[in-house]
């Protein structure tokens, strides 16, 4: 496996389309992009992206007014399981744009900003497969994993062997965030963005999330 930094250097030099050089430049200060993809399945080799959503974060402000949400038509038929999870039918997806049209727009939206996500590695892997195919690069952006920020605030000082719950639901509950209807790419990206601003503030103020046998703490509305 080639390390990401090495790939990044390689792509910076080998990039086919020079108009995407901005992806390698630093984004505006204190800006981030929270992303989430809904896919036909969990196999990062075979499955396809159905929807992709991204929302910018500037400081503590989540710029929902500048969101990016696209339905993309997968090249392979959707797995029945994915339909159950995302409530998107083949017909809905066919109304979407072709991925080919989506990627340039997506890359321009994201720019050089760090990406924020939950289980981000999977999303990035899915995106990379497409971007590499169309533009000849993989996403060079720094990546911030909210479950890691959460782990650090909650379990960072925990004795070894402590049982960890890093589920999306657990994070929302601990931070006292509203649960928007899940498995909608935009709502997931928005909730991820909320987690990010809240966790970042806790770290800034040196506040830890309390560990209790049962029940949440450091609720946003304590």
């Amino acid at each position, binding site marked *: 496996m080639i390390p990401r930094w090495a790939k990044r250097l390689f792509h910076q030099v080998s990039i086919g389309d020079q108009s995407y050089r901005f992806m390698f430049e630093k984004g505006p200060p204190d800006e981030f992009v929270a992303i989430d993809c809904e896919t036909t399945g969990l196999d990062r080799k075979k499955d396809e992206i159905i929807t992709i*959503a991204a929302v910018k974060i500037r400081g503590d402000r*989540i710029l*929902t*007014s500048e969101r990016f949400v696209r339905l993309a038509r997968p090249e392979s038929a959707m797995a029945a399981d994915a339909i159950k999870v995302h409530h998107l039918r083949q017909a809905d997806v066919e109304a979407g744009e072709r991925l080919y049209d989506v990627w340039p727009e997506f890359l321009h939206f994201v720019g050089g900003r760090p990406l924020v996500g939950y289980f981000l590695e999977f999303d990035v892997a899915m995106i990379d497969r497409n971007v590499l195919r169309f533009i000849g690069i993989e996403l060079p952006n720094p990546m911030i994993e909210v479950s890691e920020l959460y782990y650090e605030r909650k379990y960072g000082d925990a004795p070894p062997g402590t049982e960890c719950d890093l589920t999306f639901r657990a994070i929302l509950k601990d931070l006292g*965030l509203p649960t928007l209807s899940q498995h909608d790419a935009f709502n997931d990206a928005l909730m991820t963005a*909320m987690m990010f601003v809240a966790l970042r503030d806790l770290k800034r103020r040196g506040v830890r999330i309390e560990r209790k046998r049962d029940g949440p703490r450091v609720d*946003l*509305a304590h």
Partner: protein
Amino acid sequence: MSAVFDASQPPFDRLTEAEIEFLQNAVDVEYFPPGATVAAAGQPCANLHVVLKGAIEERDGDEVVAILGPRDAFDSRAVVQGTMTRSFLAREESLIYQLPRDAVMTLVGKNDRFGAYFYLDISRKLDEIVRADEEARFGTLMRTHVRDLFIHPAHFIDSKDTIEAAGHKMRDINSNALFVRDGARVGVITGMNLSKAVVLKRMSIDEAVAPVTNYDVVTIAPDDFVFSALIAMTKHNKRRLAVKEGERWVGILEDIDVLSFLAGNSQLTAGRIDRASGIADLAVAAADVNEQVRRLRRQGVKADVISEIVSDLNRRLFTRTFEFTAHQDLRERACLVVMGSEGRGEQTLRTDQDNGLILSESVPETMLQEFRDSFTQALESFGFEPCPGGVMVKNPLWSRPLADYVADFRSWIALPQPESHMNVAIFYDAAAVAGRAELLHEAKTALIEMVRGERAYLAHFARAVDAFPSPIGFFRNIITTEGAGDALDLKKGGTFPIVHGVRSLALEHGLHETHTVARIARLVELNVLKAEFGRELTQAFQYLMSMRLDSALSKTPGTSSLTKPAELSSMDRELLRDAFGVVKQFREIIRRHFNLGVF
């Protein structure tokens, strides 16, 4: 499109799908750590904020004036005015929806109901419109159309006409604004525009009105609601709106006419009665009296003040009607009286007629009959229903010489029948409204003299306080037996026992007051009632009267004194229980005082 913002809460629930979509695309979400300033006083207002999560302190200087939680919006006033007047601080970790002021103002301009939330706030009416019962409270405002208000008829001049001509025209039509036609354009010119042109701009009165005409005319349709007119005036800062129906210019609506509609202007009605030049004019004014009651009550004016105003207006109406219908010779020999609740000054909504005429001596029968007919006809044209018991001028028994009345008193007292008790009660409550008031005073003095010391008679008279059972049961439960078994009659169980018990005590002590509240005050002075109890009785009476007025205003005629406790707020139910408790106590006092146990 995914929804970021929950638009189901007021005032956003007034927006259309497209408008909500517009807002969804403009909204951001911002995170504030504890102690962070969300918006500071004195700063330009950039956003309308809605709390998504957390708690926000609203501060006036250093003082916390409110704590806002999820779904609370702030600060609608600042959105309209552009500057924050209060500071808002995060009390804990908070997420706030930020709706850009520009976007909100765009919607305010497009959607009147949404705009109403912001504009009416300034006139302190916001709270009411936000509440779930906005229909009930704002019903009249919401349902009344512009065409129901007074609109100055449209009068046109040409833009080439002179300032002088415009001034003369305004005087001729007794209006302060004219439409100005300039080719296809139509503008408005006001008296103030003319004055400013001449005084401040030193224009000659021979110059054309065109340069001082205002072509930025805000129009409204006759079918629009009054609240839209109010909003349009506030929003565009206009004192006048042009009323336009399709392509037709109907007239000009002035702010003073909207305000007098909203405020209820009883002086206006009183003036109309005083200036009336005939029965027809009085009929117009009479029609306004009932509408006044609604307006005053909507403004939160207390029921006893309303009855005072209404009684005054009705008495003026009778006085003038008497002047128009009674022959000079008759007027010099008669006293017109109103009786029953009208006489006590406890009338709110118009009920039926209760009136009579006391003559000092016999008058020619034709003259008297002529008056009876024309007076009755006039009252009917005002919408006064005839009295079912025939207590009216029309009935010869209630329009005759003083001596005949006094002779009847004797038989009423000697033969205590229910009907004669009613006659005594009605007459004892009479008040003079026109003609020679001393005739009534003389009659009442005679009545009082006759019952003085007649314990048995007075006890008989007072017995009616027990005519209806008290609607209070064990454990102070309210018993509902009226209507479909879920209502109670405020008059039978509440106001009637008070009025009649007080009347019995007043008659016994020879009082000349007619108001129940004034009688209670005199009875306290005479040590008949304890001061403490007198106060409680007065409060209970006034509370029951206001409940009656409210149910009369909201319900179908004929059921006006019924109220359904289940529809009341818990505070009103509690007050109602207290009031009935006082009534129960008062009945006990009356029973003991007149020794009613013997019956």
